[in-house]
């Protein structure tokens, strides 16, 4: 659980992902969207890295690049120290098992005509993770892990509530015995009272199975609850990262500060920093700091030169020319 000493499980080095939109066979058509722009991120074994940001920040794209669901357009991706940036499908196979993805809406990945027993058993059989004789036992074990009664094994996905379906989705991911789980907004579709159950389940599973998470969410409260470290993204780049509680208590990047202050609270809080306008277009990002167009502290320097992500002694990384409290 101490990130500094543990070995890096997955490492992104200046990872980029560009999408081309509106491309036809006519030359010169199409525009480049810089969804993720030279992001470097190391996730050590045992850590839970919370990836936060608003829509268009590139957090989901980064998550998909990390599990190689997307082919990165640039940079390097290392898993357990092995470069898998350009690994072929067959070369990836052994790593695919070790890194699983969990999505917001599990229903889409659950075949409605199959009972839960088959849905969870399928990866066990296909990847020959367990001998056939042990599969039944393992399925029941997995159901227990995610807190579903064994009696539900012969039910079909539509007979479950949203929270239960997410549990089935988690059980399927766990069947592969992964080391890393990248969870993309796993609780945002759930009701508040159910959301808390699933957040707790994620925490329990991490402790019991020694899992490493990359937890992508827009809900800062949820991220604070599960993460050991938080990475804040804006327009395809990391603007700040650091240990969870210190980052929430004392944000250094003006964007993090604005994001935190925008959360509606039940208890009285300080004055709100109201950001003007919208996210700039990722097709044509600002030349200087990505946040300079909306930043209340922006200077001429910010609009000209993009600040690099620099580490402080306490492990906090900030990409800002005029960080708060500096």
């Amino acid at each position, binding site marked *: 659980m101490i990130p500094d000493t543990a070995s890096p499980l997955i490492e992104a080095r200046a990872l980029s992902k560009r999408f081309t939109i509106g491309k036809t066979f006519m030359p010169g058509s199409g525009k480049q969207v810089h969804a993720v722009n030279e992001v470097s991120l190391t996730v050590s074994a045992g850590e839970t890295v919370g990836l936060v940001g608003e829509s268009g920040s590139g957090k989901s794209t980064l998550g998909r690049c990390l599990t190689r669901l997307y082919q990165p357009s640039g940079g390097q991706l290392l898993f357990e120290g092995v470069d898998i940036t350009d690994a072929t499908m067959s070369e990836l196979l052994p790593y695919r098992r070790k890194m699983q993805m969990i999505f917001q809406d599990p229903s889409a990945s659950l075949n409605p005509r199959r009972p839960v027993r088959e849905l969870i058993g399928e990866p066990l059989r296909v990847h020959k993770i367990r001998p056939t004789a042990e599969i039944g036992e393992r399925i029941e074990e997995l159901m227990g892990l995610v807190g579903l009664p064994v009696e539900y094994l012969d039910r079909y996905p539509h007979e479950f509530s949203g929270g239960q379906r997410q549990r089935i989705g988690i059980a399927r991911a766990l069947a592969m015995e992964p080391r890393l789980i990248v969870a993309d907004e796993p609780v945002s579709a759930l009701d508040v009272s159910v959301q808390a159950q699933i957040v707790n389940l994620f925490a329990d599973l991490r402790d019991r199975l020694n899992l490493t998470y990359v937890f992508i969410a*827009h809900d800062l409260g949820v991220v604070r609850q599960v993460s050991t470290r938080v990475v804040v993204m804006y327009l395809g780049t990391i603007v700040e990262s650091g240990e969870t509680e210190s980052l929430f208590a004392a944000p250094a990047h003006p964007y993090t500060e604005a994001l935190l202050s925008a959360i509606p609270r039940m208890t009285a809080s300080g004055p709100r920093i109201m950001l003007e306008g919208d996210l700039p277009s990722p097709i044509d990002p600002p030349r200087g700091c990505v946040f300079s167009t909306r930043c209340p502290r922006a200077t001429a320097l910010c609009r000209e030169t993009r600040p690099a992500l620099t580490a402080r002694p306490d492990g906090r990384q900030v990409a800002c020319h005029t960080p708060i409290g500096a």
Partner: protein
Amino acid sequence: MANPDQPALLEVEQLKVSFATDRGRVTAINDVSFRIDEGEFVAIVGESGSGKTVSLLSILGLTDPRTTSVEGAAHFRGKPILGLKDSALRKIRGKEIAFIPQDPLTAMTPVHTIGWQIVEQIRTHQSISAAAARRRAVELLDEVGLPNPEAAFGRYPHQLSGGMRQRAVIAMALSCNPALLIADEPTTALDVTVQAQVLELLKRLRRDHGSAIVLITHDMGVVAEVADRVMVMYAGRVVERGTAREVFAAPQHPYTWGLIASIPPVDGPRPHRLPSIAGTPPTPANIPAGCGFAPRCPHRFAACDSLPPRLPRDGHGAFCHLDEATRARLAAAPETAR
């Protein structure tokens, strides 16, 4: 806030909504009564399936009459509106009571410009020229904070960002100066920084126009930010109501306790585990006969198999069998307090 001498803007009594389904009739809303006064900001909080949206849609006649039956009474400014002929109800809908839908992308017709859709609403209710309606629409777009309202007038919904779209939808709702705005999760589809802008806009509009606002939401934080009064709904019934101050300072219903406690905090100490409510909310088809929350309630006892006593008409109250002393004791206990 509720002043019994003044006629209520909207008064709903014993509303009951049931749907015809494949497995027979299910009651989604049962015995819901509330009043909204002029200029009030009321929040209705609940999870999916709690009936918070359906209760208001049914009052506006926006549920499907072939499958839905609506019983009870609703008065708008003293006039009954439930069971009114559609043609008569249409004169109120969009003019006196406006609706702000949840996801502004799917809530606007994709093939017409923002301006066209606002002008359409204005000219449905007021006999003014197209040019005047256009001027009014541009004014409205300016008022809700769209940069360059003239250009925005000619934009299609998909050409605006989520926040700008939600502003455009709000402009449309405001176009006939309604006395009551019903906003159905207006910020759920938005990012937090944009949500803060839109909530600020709603607060300002209430100040400037004096419209009452009913905000339907699942987010307790949003409620605390904006609402004067709160109604908490669960399993088709109002389980607690009171002023926002009362409800947040001393919530009375075990569901409200759980709801508040299960929100992960963004400041203060980080709980090791989030307090959560066991189980899942019922669907309209399997709402228990007694207290709807009983199956998930950690404090249930024998009486909970029957319906709790009705909520008082005014003031802070909960739809719950627990007596005041027990409630005070439980609320003080560390696992329910926050």
